[in-house]
Structure formats: C-alpha cells, structure tokens
C-alpha cells in the first residue's frame, strides 16, 4: 500500500515536503532551558549568605573575640556545600557555560574570604559589609542569567 502511494508521488511533490521538514526541525539552541528549581536554589542561597553576614555584623563584635573563625565554621561549611552543589548542578546542564562560570566565581570567592577570615581570625564591620555586597552582586548576576532563560521558554510555548 505504502509502496503504491510512494510510487505514484512525483519527485517535485515530496521534495518540498523534505525541505519543509528540514526547516521545521531547524531550531537554534544557544543556552540551557530555564530551571525553576535552580532559580529557587539561587534565591535561597542568596538569602542564606546575606543572613550569615548580617548576623555576623549585628550580633557579634571584634572586641570580645566574637568574630573568631571557630564561631562561624559550621555556617561556612554549610554554605560552601550548598554553593558546590549548585555549581555541579549548573555544570552538568548542557549549553550552560555562562551560568557555570558565575557560580564558579562565587564559590571561589567564598572560599577565598573564608580562608582570609581563618587566617586573620576576625573580620571588621567594613569587610563584612564588603563581603555581603560582593555576594549580593554575584547572586544577582546568577539570577539574571537563570531568569534570562525564561525568554526562550516563553518563546517555545508560543511557537
């Protein structure tokens, strides 16, 4: 039956069909698709880091050694674990190099500032504020990158 139909078709009948198929299946893919779970994790982690530094700033003092590194070890470990998990989650997503780089910079700087705190065994108000600002800016960049992927998600539902 199929052989009968195909033998009746002239080449100029099915060539445009092939062309249409090629054009229809041709889609440009430059970035990963939006991931609501990752977006929520970025927000949660941004809040955790903000709370960490605000708590250090408002509830501890340099004078009575309240900012000794050992007082914050658990928080540092928990945040680093979450940041590392987010980095790996970004890294395995195809076409996600840009977001992965932002996450890597955030993780590297967090580790660097943790090491600085460990070495000096204290942090001034000014440095806490600067660290808080640094991570707020990095999480904002991370969120911008993830939210930008919504643009293509919206277009694929429209098409």
């Amino acid at each position: 039956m199929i052989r009968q139909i195909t033998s009746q078709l002239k080449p100029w009948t099915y060539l445009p069909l092939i062309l249409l198929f090629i054009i229809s299946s041709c889609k440009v893919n430059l970035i990963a698709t939006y991931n609501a779970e990752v977006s929520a994790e970025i927000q949660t982690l941004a809040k955790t880091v903000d709370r960490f530094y605000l708590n250090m700033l408002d509830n501890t003092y340099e004078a009575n050694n309240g900012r000794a590194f050992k007082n914050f070890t658990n928080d540092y470990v928990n945040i680093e674990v979450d940041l590392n998990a987010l980095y790996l989650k970004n890294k395995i997503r195809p076409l996600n190099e840009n977001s992965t780089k932002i996450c890597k910079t955030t993780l590297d700087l967090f580790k660097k500032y943790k090491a600085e705190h460990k070495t000096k065994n204290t942090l001034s108000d000014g440095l806490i504020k600067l660290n808080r600002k640094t991570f707020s800016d990095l999480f904002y960049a991370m969120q911008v990158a993830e939210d930008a992927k919504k643009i293509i998600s919206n277009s694929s539902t429209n098409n």
Partner: protein
Amino acid sequence: MNFDINNTINDMLAAIKGTVSDHWEHVKETAMQFLQNEKERLEMIAQLRISGDLNQEDFESRLKDSQKIMEAELEALAVLSKAIIQKAANAAIDVLSKAVKAALPI
C-alpha cells in the same frame, strides 16, 4: 507554488527586529544595574583602603576580585543576549517555515 523570497525575508527581518526591541529595555536596565553595583562596590573598597581596613596588598586583591565579578556580570549579559538571539532566530525560522508550508502544492 507561490513563494516570494523578498516578502519572506522582510517578514523574517520584522520578526527578528520585533523580538530584539521587545527585550532591549531589559538588557539596558540590567546593564545599568550592574554598573551601579560596580560603582557601589568600588566605592566601598576605596573607603576601606582609606580607613585602613584593607592594606595595600588586600586592596589590590579586592580590585582583582572586582574584575572577576565584572566578568561574571558580563557572563549574565551574555546569557541574556543569547536568549534574545535564540528567540529572534527561531522566530525568523518559524516565518520561513510557514511561508514554505503555505506555498506547498498540497
């Protein structure tokens, strides 16, 4: 078969232009926000050097970190631009696909 390549190209260009202009304001606002963040952070670093919270070595180290943050912000803008390019390119391909489909003798 009724397929006018000039009309199709014009329609494709209109689709690209429409998509880019729809999102251009968003790119501009985000870039301005990044610049504002940079300004605030660099001001803080300068103040901390003046107050002595940062010695010269730490000051230079923080400036290098700021450069890395700027690069991260550019990565975010790259994602935004790629998203717009992807949406525009696919809108143009969609126009071409529809035009070819309409011209098919079936």
